[in-house]
């Protein structure tokens, strides 16, 4: 835009405008800094999945590994308590009702070492937990069924997996018919003693 001769352009001559621009930039930096700081601070909440609760996840992971290791321990040719629990499973899932593990039909989970360990270790510490049995079908797809279920885990849940081998000779009278009907876990190899390979998945999370 043309200007009258002898008069200076106010936009060009006003040096305060540059300072205002710089001020605006500094304010912007301050605002961004506050946002970043706030984001870091809020990640400290227990249920947020981030590095801030990594130590909690690490604790849960180690706790879960220890529980599964002790459950899967066996000596001198005997079956481990975890394997016995799988063999005795009736296919139902159980939920902790603040006193015991009960099914939806009102049946209580008794004679289960897994339930005993979870009750004494996880329940007492306020750690929510699920236990699933997973296996691979003949077509290669993985299926899983709940054994103990206490709700959907949060984002910061950890999963610990232990493999347990089942053979026909592990079942009473080497007859897995009843187990197959109850659990839906089929004999993966009918030509040999091999029955199936079960992944025991223990999920732990803080409430």
């Amino acid at each position, binding site marked *: 835009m043309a200007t009258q001769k002898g008069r200076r352009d106010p936009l060009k001559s006003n040096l305060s405008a540059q300072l205002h621009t710089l001020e605006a930039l*500094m304010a912007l930096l*301050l605002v961004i800094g506050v946002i970043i700081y706030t984001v870091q601070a809020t990640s400290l909440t227990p249920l947020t999945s981030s*590095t801030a609760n990594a130590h909690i996840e*690490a604790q849960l992971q180690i706790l879960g590994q220890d529980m599964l290791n002790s459950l899967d321990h066996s000596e001198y040719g005997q079956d481990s308590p975890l394997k016995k629990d799988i063999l005795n499973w009736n296919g139902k899932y159980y939920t902790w009702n603040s006193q015991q593990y009960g099914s939806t039909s009102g049946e209580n989970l008794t004679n289960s070492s897994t339930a005993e360990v979870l009750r004494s270790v996880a329940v007492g510490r306020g750690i929510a937990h699920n236990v699933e049995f997973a296996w691979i079908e003949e077509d290669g797809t993985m299926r899983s069924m709940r054994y103990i279920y206490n709700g959907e885990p949060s984002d910061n849940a950890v999963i610990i997996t232990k493999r347990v081998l089942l053979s026909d000779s592990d079942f009473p009278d080497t007859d897995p018919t009843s187990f197959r009907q109850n659990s839906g876990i089929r004999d993966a190899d009918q030509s*040999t003693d091999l029955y*199936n*390979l079960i992944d025991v998945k223990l999920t732990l999370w803080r409430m």
Partner: protein
Amino acid sequence: MKKRNDSAQMILIAGFAIGIGIVVLTVMLNNIIYASNTASEANIETNVFDFSNTVKVTTQAYEKAYDSGSINNSYIANYTSKMAMSHAIAGFIFTLHNDSLQEPYFTQNGLHTGDPDWVVVDRIDRTDSFELMIKTSSLGNASKCFVVEAINQSGSMFWSARVFNSSGTYYVNVTNSTDVLRTQNIGSGNPSLNITNNTNFHFDTLTAGKQYRIRFINGDNASGTFTLSGELINGEPFEIRRYHVLNTTMSLNKNGHLEMNVTIPVTLPRGQL
């Protein structure tokens, strides 16, 4: 003029401030991005947990696949297939192969190089069956004799059987804590020593009512098989049968890296774990 110079200084200082601010913000953002992408369980020995589980479940598979002195290869092939599929979900490639069956030594892992002095079963309340079959050609002389002994909870030996080669004749010496109770020629070849239900060995009478452990000494100076069963102090049964030993190699690969490659001896058919 003076006002304009002051403004120039302000602009310079503000420029420095903005520059420093940008550097600080960049460092803070970089820290967040770095920390967010760090594996939160990096300090946990997850691999050790998985590997020990793999070794244990594979040992169980060989125990189940052992049938009448041989390995059922179909069982192992199907087991390997199942393990490969199970590991594939986690991105691992699982492979398994084994050597042929060997005659075991009385060492801890069954190999000649294994630990020769070891406790076979601890915290025994009662032994129902204990039988050894020893290959006499592997026996050492009296100074390197193969010893089976029962030790009480305070660590004192109160029964032992010492098997040795004396100039081509093979003997067993049965002792209590102080005296030799019997010396017997056991013959040659692969003689069987039935220690329980046999008054010659005095084992049943000396162990009755005691809580003890059974220990092998100089197990690398004798090869052969044994069976041992009974009940532990806690009321649980125990059963160990060792007829063969087999070297098995299992490996896990991930992203082209060999994560695990171990060869372990498995004593068969029962009781390694």
